[in-house]
């Protein structure tokens, strides 16, 4: 692992001061827009994502031929999302890839049997990119779906993990850790069911380490799930209190 930056100091802290298993600071808010059926804003450290959901509505065009729900995702990254401002054409290869991945993970969570011949549009915009962009996008999309009142089997959340030189797994990889050359593994999961909806690796892990790294990412997923769940409850109490619904819960 020559030339690779040490991701974990001997004092047991990562480059930004976190311990190996710690997530970055997470902030989230649901219902940030009025226009869409559901929306959410999510911050995981310095990665900041907006998600908006439209639907379910009647599927258009040829898509109606199938009986299944159609999940239409769009992923894009703002020009100003990285320190070097780049013009990112919508629908570039990376976005296309992420879009597919989002669709794959979300279709595992949405109770599709409830929405035959319907379409759900999910738009994700990364406002600031600082690592684990896909994972944060998915988490934001999940919140937006819940905000839109779409039935889910379970929270679908994603988390990344890496491995330090000393073979200690690290949770929730920041951009600096990504570019320092650590391997990156992304897992999207249904944590309660312990089902993995999607898994991606930036490079090969040795078989000896793969299991522990996946487990680390899964533990991260569970933790994020708890945070999102708390946020959803908070949101419900908040909007509920206006209509005096909060006490019902």
């Amino acid at each position, binding site marked *: *692992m*020559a*030339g*690779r930056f040490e991701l974990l*100091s*001997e*004092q*047991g*802290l990562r480059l*930004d*001061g*976190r311990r190996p298993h*710690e997530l*970055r*600071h997470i902030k989230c808010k649901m219902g940030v827009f009025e226009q869409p059926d559901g929306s959410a804003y999510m911050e995981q*450290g*310095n990665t900041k994502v907006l998600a908006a959901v439209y639907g379910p509505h009647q599927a258009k065009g040829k898509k109606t031929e199938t009986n299944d729900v159609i999940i239409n995702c769009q992923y894009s990254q703002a020009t100003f999302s990285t*320190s*070097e401002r780049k013009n990112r054409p919508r629908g570039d290869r990376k976005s296309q890839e992420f879009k597919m991945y989002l669709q794959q993970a979300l279709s595992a969570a949405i109770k599709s049997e409830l929405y035959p011949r319907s379409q759900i549009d999910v738009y994700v915009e990364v406002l600031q990119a*600082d690592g684990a962009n896909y994972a944060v996008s998915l988490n934001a999309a999940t919140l937006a779906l819940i905000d839109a009142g779409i039935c889910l089997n379970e929270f679908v959340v994603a988390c990344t993990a890496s491995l330090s030189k000393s*073979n200690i797994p690290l949770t929730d990889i*920041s951009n*600096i850790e990504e570019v320092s050359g650590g391997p990156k593994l992304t897992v999207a999961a249904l944590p309660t069911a312990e089902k993995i909806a999607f898994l991606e690796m930036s490079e090969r*892990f*040795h078989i*000896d*380490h793969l299991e522990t790294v996946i487990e680390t990412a899964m533990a991260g997923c569970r933790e994020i799930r708890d945070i999102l769940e708390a946020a959803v409850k908070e949101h419900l109490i908040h909007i509920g209190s206006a209509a005096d619904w909060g006490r019902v819960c």
Partner: protein
Amino acid sequence: MQTLREFTRKTKRGNILKIVREHYLRDDIGCGSDICQHCFQNDVYALTADHDLQSSLFKYPHYLVLDTNVVLDQIDVLEEDVLRNVIILTTVLNEVKHKSSSIYKRINEIIHDRRRNFYVFVNEHHKDTYADREPDETANDRNDRAIRIATKWYDNHLKSSQVSKSFQRSGRQVTRVVLLTDDAGNRAKAEAEDILVATASEYVKSLSDHPLLADKLSHKTFANEKQALPQYPPHLSLREILEGLKQKKLLQGSFQASRENYLEGNVNVEQYEKGILIQGRESLNRAVDGDIVAIELLPQSEWSAPSEIVLEEKNVYADDLPSEERTEEEKVMLQQVRAAAVVDAERTPTGRIVGIVRRKWRQYCGILQPSLIEDTSRHIFVPADRKIPRIRIETRQAATLQNQRIIVTIDNWPRNSRYPHGHFVRSLGPLGDMNTENEVILLEHDVPHCKFSEEVLSFLPKMPWTITPEDYAKRVDLRDLYICSVDPPGCTDIDDALHCRELENGNLEVGVHIADVSHFIRPGNALDKEAAARGTTVYLVGKRIDMVPELLSSNLCSLVGGVERFAFSCVWEMDKEANIIKKRFHKSVIKSKRAMTYEEAQVLIDDSTQDNEIAKSLRHLNRLAKILKKRRMDNGALVLASPEIRFQVDSETHEPLEVEVKQLRDTNSMVEEFMLLANISVAEHIAAEFSECAVLRRHPKPPTTNFDPLIKAARYQGFEIETETGLSLSHSLDKCVKADNPYFNTMIRILTTRCMMQAVYFISGSLQKEEFFHYGLAAPIYTHFTSPIRRYSDIMVHRLLAASIGADSTYAQLLERKSNEELCHNLNYRHKMAQYAGRASVGLNTHLFFRGKEEDEEGYVLFVRKNALQVLIPKYGLEGTLYLKTDKDGKDGHERAKSTVVFTFSEEDHTQRCGNVVFHSFDPVTVRLSLDSSNVQHEKLVFRLVKPYIKGFSVETGSESAADVAAPPPTKKTKKNQKKK
């Protein structure tokens, strides 16, 4: 537990970017002190309340916080086991890491030593000690401030734990925190902020119990020099250098000082094949061997040629001002060289050094130059390595160090000082003592040689070690086979054994069994890491520095006779013509029937009355080996020669008693042949299995220009050397035979060896298949498999092979190309150094052998130089210089009356002529060898001419030589040299 804090940073990457990074501040970082009653401590207490260091400045127990400059400059002080209870802030650690990776490594070693009580405090992530950079504050000022904040915090933090009633009742003194800094600005600010502060030098000098520690302080300036005039041109700043490089006005390269002429050096620059020549003190401009420097190329009209003159610096004394005479001498030398260069067509690009990109200063071995003045603390240190300039140091222990080998390091080299400034690090022991001298060799060649640590030893198998039934189950049982080993006498680390038996189908089964070291050294543990860092066992005369602990090298792994041992076997089925029909690899248990020396094996083979299984097996092997060798030669493998000698060493004094040239028997070549075959078979196998990460060894074909000196030398003798391919070279070498000079062929081969490139380890994924070629062996692929006890490369190859046949599991690093590449890099370096160290040890012992002796020996002129003959003495495998022109001091240390003897050097056919005596390359000569001990550090063998006799130059050899004088002056055809006793 975690708070979020963001900070901004600007970096240059073409344009200025604003980078925002998260920075978490924590409340769970302990202070590491056993006094503390607040912190959650996640570790054993590193800092303790007991304090026995008496300082006249701080007369109470105290912890030290070190500023970055103190760590960087005073690492030698820190390495002494004196300072304890030291707090290293991460701010400091990061700065050290950026400034010097070697010091970073050294400070980490100190931190890891539990007994030293050094504690790393992560102040950068502690909520109370983090310092946000203020507007307009430089990074440096911010770091200084962070260090002060942390010091202050520590002091208050500890105070708050020491105010309780119970503490006061205990009557203990309050432990305080002291900042050590050599930065005057930081110090002033610290004082203003009520922080206890001192400079490193003040503090060290205040330690009354350790008066000698002050010797190790780094010296940037010496008192009497402040007014001295600059002697060197100034260096460009790093920014100016970068600018100059960008505009292609300057060139960058690593500086190599000449060993022979202290006023000359060379800078390796990419575009210039032979590098750029630097001549003269001002042009050298304080560069030290190894430094990365920036140079300016001189206009072509000022180019010069390498002087080919041996010029050694005369003794100077610490208080000397640069003497006129010396400057004069330097000027004369330069003028001469330049004048010569005008006529000479061999002028090369010449430049001057204008700046230093990076210093590569390290620690140097050497001695103190005896001082003319008594009671002075200022001294001149003379490094053992001639490429390194003398160094000024201050020490109070000169009297005790006078006859010792010591280590000194350079601190800086100001413009107004002729020599760099440095400080004493430690003493190695008395001069001339065998242990000291070996230590010098090991240090100078960067050979790791300290004892194996407890942690490393803890990974050794527990004794008594036994083979369990599970072990047998996993291995092929070969205990019944007639396996034996053949090695040099006295070999205790036996890593290979052989067998050969006839099969029922008439074919032969040949097995090479290699010690199964990788069974005992498991990847990634401390033992493995240590072995990987050492890379190889190093052999000095009478001393072996093991790569793995002795329990493995001489016992459990060594395939000694009559004992059951684990082996990794490579077994072939061959026909009688040594064609391989099948090959297989497996782990096995063997029981060597006999461990033999080459000589014993030879006797057994030759003695036809012996008809036991071992003898039969050896005869088969010997016959097959000859076929294999012939086949290899026909493919173009080279037979190279390098004079190799062995010392008989006195077992008690370790001093050499006898010198003998290593004898080569059939059996040497027999063992070698099968090891080559095993290596090649394994190389083919692992390269096929692991296309990305197999550890292989290649030997590149030398560029044709490398052969120029060889071709020239042979041409003078009327032979043409073909260097097109290995095969044509091999053939033309075979043809170089002179009836009247039996040693001629060997000498040609010695010269050929010197044209070769280094063979190197590499990773299969890093090169194209065609580049795997091993030139010397004429093999398309090669690796090292057969000596895992003494080479780490072989352990890696064993692991790869074991993984490929399912005998052992893989692990992440094994298959990683990048880490394997780094490993190969280290192995190549260690092997080169081990080789040099071995040679240095032979040189040292040769000197010891000649101490107090004078011997006349037959030798040969290896090549002719402008002012000397390079002479080779086959009997000792020894090479030396016979100077032909004497300067007024007698360069070889022997005063001679001004002689009228003049030698004329002919550039055309490389000869030296004096009267009617002509010296050509390869001519036989008789020389008198003696040891010149006038320079205690560089004892050297002096070669003086005996024959052919030149009046006024050759040694007068009493009555016997009178006859020679009467005889007509000998010409080069005179070959009646008889050895005199």
